[in-house]
């Protein structure tokens, strides 16, 4: 049950990026995702790439590891590239294969759009690679704090998210156990006719749902027993500390945005 998708997998470390306040990281990545769309020429894309590469380098996560994680999306990038290569009809014709002609604009567009996609994935991956899910949750809760005034149940949502994250390994284990138990009763999860496959899935999902509901019920009881009664009057153990370095990084993103505005054509 191992997957090689690294999106969402935390890699422990003590780099400057790891130690950034999760709120800062969330804001940086969010801002980056927006300003990516400002880029429209070689200079601006180079600047954006430079920023993302520097960010990745500072995390001290081996680049080969990040690259391996990006592999699964490569075919999407390739597809985007090809699509633009053949569909955009701007500028001079560079190359001609039969009825298909490749224009200068197509090459440019293809490279830019796939680069944009790659950068977006890279930056969001950097967030999850260097931030534990619980820190992300804390960050989201804190950033959404102002919404509490508008009666958005921010605390409850954050707690829900935290509990879901906490139970992912438990449910993975449970899934494996049930699959094994059903396999021992002759279920083949790897193949068979459509109807057999459906039956196999049902034999996994029904027990999984039932045990999850039972868990949810017991957990709710346990939370009540431990004095939980909503967000009111609750103190918080996990604390976020905004440090000067967080401000510096945000300033860097602001600078990047300003430069992009200046350099774009």
């Amino acid at each position: 049950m191992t997957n090689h998708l690294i999106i969402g997998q935390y890699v422990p470390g003590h780099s400057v990026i790891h130690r950034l306040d999760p709120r800062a990281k969330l804001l940086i990545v969010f801002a980056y995702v927006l300003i990516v769309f400002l880029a429209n020429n070689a200079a601006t894309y180079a600047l954006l790439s430079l920023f993302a590469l520097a960010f990745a380098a500072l995390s001290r996560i081996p680049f080969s590891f990040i690259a391996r994680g990006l592999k699964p999306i490569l075919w999407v990038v390739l597809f985007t590239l090809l699509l633009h290569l053949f569909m955009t009809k701007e500028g001079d014709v560079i190359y001609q294969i039969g009825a298909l002609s490749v224009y200068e604009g197509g090459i440019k567009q293809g490279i830019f759009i796939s680069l944009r996609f790659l950068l977006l994935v890279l930056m969001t991956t950097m967030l999850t690679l260097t931030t534990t899910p619980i820190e992300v949750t804390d960050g989201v809760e804190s950033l959404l704090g102002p919404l509490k005034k508008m009666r958005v149940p921010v605390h409850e949502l954050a707690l829900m998210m935290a509990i879901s994250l906490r139970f992912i390994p438990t449910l993975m284990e449970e899934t494996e156990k049930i699959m094994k138990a059903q396999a021992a009763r002759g279920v083949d999860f790897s193949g068979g006719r459509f109807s057999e496959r459906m039956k196999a899935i049902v034999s996994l999902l029904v027990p999984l749902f039932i045990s999850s509901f039972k868990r949810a019920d017991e957990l709710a009881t346990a939370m009540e027993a431990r004095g939980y009664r909503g967000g009111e009057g609750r103190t918080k153990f996990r604390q976020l500390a905004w440090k000067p370095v967080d401000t510096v990084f945000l300033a860097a993103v602001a600078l990047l945005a300003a430069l992009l505005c200046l350099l774009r054509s």
Partner: protein
Amino acid sequence: MDIVFEKVEHVYNARSPLARRALYDVNVAIRSGAYVAVVGHTGSGKSTLLQHLNGLLQPTSGAVKIGEETITSNKRPKQLKPLRKKVGVVFQFPEHQLFEETVEKDICFGPLNFGVPEDEAKRKARELIKLVGLSEDVLAKSPFDLSGGQMRRVAIAGVLALEPEVLVLDEPTAGLDPRGRKEMMEMFYHLHREKQLTTVLVTHSMEDAARYADEIVVMHEGTVWGHGTPEEMFRDADKLAAIGLSVPETVKLKQQLEKRFGVVIPSPCLTLEQTAEAIQQLFSKVSVHD
């Protein structure tokens, strides 16, 4: 069906940074018709071992021979189904595998997967529900309306319905109260003898191992620490204590009596009855001397 483990090793997540060796150099032979108890701490490799018995796991090196079939790291039978039909596994908390709308359907699920005709599967369900100590009218109920203990019995019936030659039990009594535990162990013992099964019981209970098993395999830190009759395995309490395992209460009593009385008690004292008998003899000897 004889089962033989030859130099079996199992590494989880082999060839990755998360690699973890759960079994190594495991050599065990389980003869057909034996009742074998596997004991050891959590993490000793017991449950990894048992998953090799029906091909749920493949050894990363060495070979597992189950009857005619051989499973090695690069070779396993093309069809695992025949093997899985012959080796039934009752996992811990087997009630977690129930999913059908009715008890009858759930019991029939396994047999139908193995191509047993529906009529016959239903007939078997009726027979088995009584065997596990429930009444026939339970068949029409939803398994989820039953009590925990009843659900477990239904799940066990679902495994027995495969009519396996080898029955593997992974702590089948966990969470039951004393009466439930005793009834269930007696049921398995009865089945073992009546259907001439080969039974492999994974347990923490030294009492059950002593009472029911012909042989005990002691697992420790991923390999076989000892293998022999209960009498042999429980002879040296200190050695077992060194790996954090205990001997049954009866054997403890026997050893304390031997020490206090300065005598040797010839009986292995594996059950309460045997031990009471042995003490009786100890006392009657004294009377003879008088």
